[in-house]
């Protein structure tokens, strides 16, 4: 490939959860507006390392490629971000690509983020409608509430906020900022507010909101710019109010 511009990529490989990890380096042909997904596809089409060794295509999750499905979160040059919007020209080389570290590894860059979906169940992240039969319009919602709620509802469950949170670790099952922000969203909705107290209660106890140590990494890592720290502060107040009230009445 003499004479053509190259992209050097280093990928952390691991064949399975119990296998040991190793790094592989690849030299790819540069093209304009290349992103990390294109790099991974190039490798799949020609799975040969920089030093000429045959290897296997890299296992990774991806789907929409426009940063709205949340699939392709990984560590790129040490930063938790979506691979599809990670443009090669804006990255320092060699580009280091690793799986997120806070979720169980499946293979290579693929991790298991089921924990996030289980947490959504734990906090009842839904509106409790009576049924799908015709019951007329929903409650009126002011544009102000909509403008607050819509950004929160943009959460793509990518897991970046958990990845960067020091409170998410082997010893701690902290639900993380994304879930707390979802509680705020559903409690904000007129119908959702009907089981507000259940959601707040779900955030008490082990892994609950009190685990947050206010590092504020989450809000900087969020690819959708969700005001996560604002959500945590607001939900925290509500949780305390409810706890205190329960203690007073109790």
């Amino acid at each position: 490939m003499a004479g053509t511009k190259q992209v050097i990529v280093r990928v952390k490989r691991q064949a399975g959860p119990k296998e040991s990890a190793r790094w592989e380096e690849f030299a790819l042909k540069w093209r304009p507006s290349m992103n990390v997904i294109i790099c991974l596809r190039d490798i799949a089409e020609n799975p040969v390392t920089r030093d000429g060794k045959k290897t296997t295509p890299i296992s990774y999750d991806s789907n929409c490629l426009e940063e709205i499905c949340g699939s392709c979160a990984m560590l790129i040059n040490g930063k938790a971000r979506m691979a599809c919007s990670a443009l090669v020209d804006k990255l320092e080389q060699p580009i280091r690509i690793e799986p997120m570290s806070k979720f169980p590894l499946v293979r290579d860059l693929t991790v298991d983020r089921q924990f996030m979906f289980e947490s959504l169940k734990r906090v009842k992240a839904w509106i409790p409608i009576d049924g799908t039969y015709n019951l007329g319009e929903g409650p009126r919602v002011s544009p102000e509430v909509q403008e607050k709620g819509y950004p929160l509802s943009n959460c793509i469950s990518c897991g970046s906020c958990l990845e960067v949170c020091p409170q998410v670790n082997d010893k701690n099952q902290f639900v993380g900022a994304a879930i707390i922000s979802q509680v705020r969203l559903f409690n904000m909705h007129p119908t959702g507010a009907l089981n507000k107290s259940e959601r707040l209660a779900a955030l008490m106890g082990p892994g609950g909101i009190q685990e947050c140590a206010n590092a504020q990494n989450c809000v900087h890592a969020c690819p959708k710019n969700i005001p996560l720290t604002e959500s945590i502060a607001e939900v925290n107040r509500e949780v305390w109010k409810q706890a205190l009230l329960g203690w007073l009445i109790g």
Partner: protein
Amino acid sequence: MATIRVAEAGVPVDLFSIVPVKRSHSVCAQGGINAAKNQKGEGDTVDKHFDDTIYGGDFLANQPLVKRMCEAAPGIIDLLDRMGVMFNRTPEGLLDYRRFGGTLYHRTAFAGATTGQQLLYALDEQVRRHEAEGKVKKFEGATFLSAVTDEGGVCRGICAMDLRTMEVKTFAGDAVIFATGGNGAIFGRSTNSVVCTGSAQAALFQQGVDYANGEFIQVHPTAIPGEDKLRLMSESARGEGGRVWVPRNPAEKRAPRSIPEAERFYFLEEWYPKYGNLVPRDIATRAIHRIVYQEKLGIDGQPAVFLDVTHIPRETLDRKLEGILEIYEKFLGVDPRVEPMKVFPAMHYTMGGIWVNGEDQATNVPGIYAAGECEYQYHGANRLGANSLVSCIFGGGLAGPAAVKYAKNLEKGAESAPSAVFDGERKRQEGKNQKLIGQDGSENPITIWRELGDVMTEHVTVTRINKNLEMADAKIRTLQERYKKINLSDRTKWSNQTLNFARELENMIVLARVITLGALARNESRGAHYKPDFPERDDANWLKTTRAKWVNNDIQLTYEPVDISLIKPRPRRYDAAK
């Protein structure tokens, strides 16, 4: 929606999805969802929505079910509203509506420019609720390989592969509903997500499920070119006032913003004064191709035109279009609020799909139902913007109860089917995997896929010429031969994405032929299907549905009449009001 309806009926559901449901392709739907609620006092009605849809689809859709969909649409919006979708609101707290292509009314409810994401989330949340209550069991990270059918040709369940363990298993089910989406991957690059391969549809087709109107492929006029994906730039950009133009002078060197109005060619507005930038997608796409390839007016001689929203107040853009403008900014590093966007048409949607009856989404194989983009029922020869979200929710809402009713009326349930039926299917699928993993070949699946995409995009999208279609089919058949010699370069049995892709690719090739042969046969121009050698719609010979069948391991095209009992076909034109 189908899952929710079945769970509501108290019937257990096993839900299979390649990706976690929340990551499905519907998140990419941007602009909105149609319903004639007439909330702007314009005199919009269900009948007008129905007429716009049929007319927009160039009279190829069977009409009665489309009418029912338009009637149901306002109730669907209400339901989504009750589910908590953060739709944009008017100062009174009511839902806001915007204009979309192919209509003159504000009929499209929206949540910013990420409406599909918001709707999918609302439905996913309801499913999660049923899951938490034990009514739904999810199998995420599993892919469909084939239907399990008994000797009588009745579907008794499915055969699926776990994408982590690569284990192949069968699952009994009294009825199976498919909501497997589009097939953009057949065209290599499209606006579709990675999982939109059409593989499930193609697998079913090869098991005797008919496939209808495959040749009708929607090419969206405005997408951002990219090597991995052609990212959609929603019609809502034009719905909110965005304008499409090119410099009148092909040698124009000035920055777009400094080109005076008089030297800009707003070709859609000029050619289609009544609908302007909001002509239906097939019309806008052909106009852009004409500008670029015939008039040679593409920006800097490249295949691109401007989509300009810079004249719209920033506050409006951020409130109504932020999601899509961010995509442009993130992937191209240019702020579309300041610089006009450069866009070009891209494969976007398949109007064709699994054949279903005109009643309740049942296919021709007992026990198999289909809803959403994977079936063919609602959009005729061209889909109107913001009709896809309504059609998939309506179709799912029909399919769920229909499947329940079918299951309850079965004399013998799936569990009574002989175990040999299940074992046989599992062994057949395991055998395919073993062969693929074991074989030593010279072909790379991604290379074959790229070539398939190139030939399909070049010859089977906007402009179709018979001799090119014949060439394309010949090429696809060569790819089919080369496929037999593929080498997986990954023979492991854990999270082997190459194996899964190879399985999908085999099916994509079959579906590519269905699309190409359907296009080759249809000697007319209708909606998205355009043949310069046959430029007119030909109702006398072609007002009929293509119904492809799998006969003796090959594709056979048959035709059936279109139900036009409600609106008499009339010429379709958008240069004047209908």
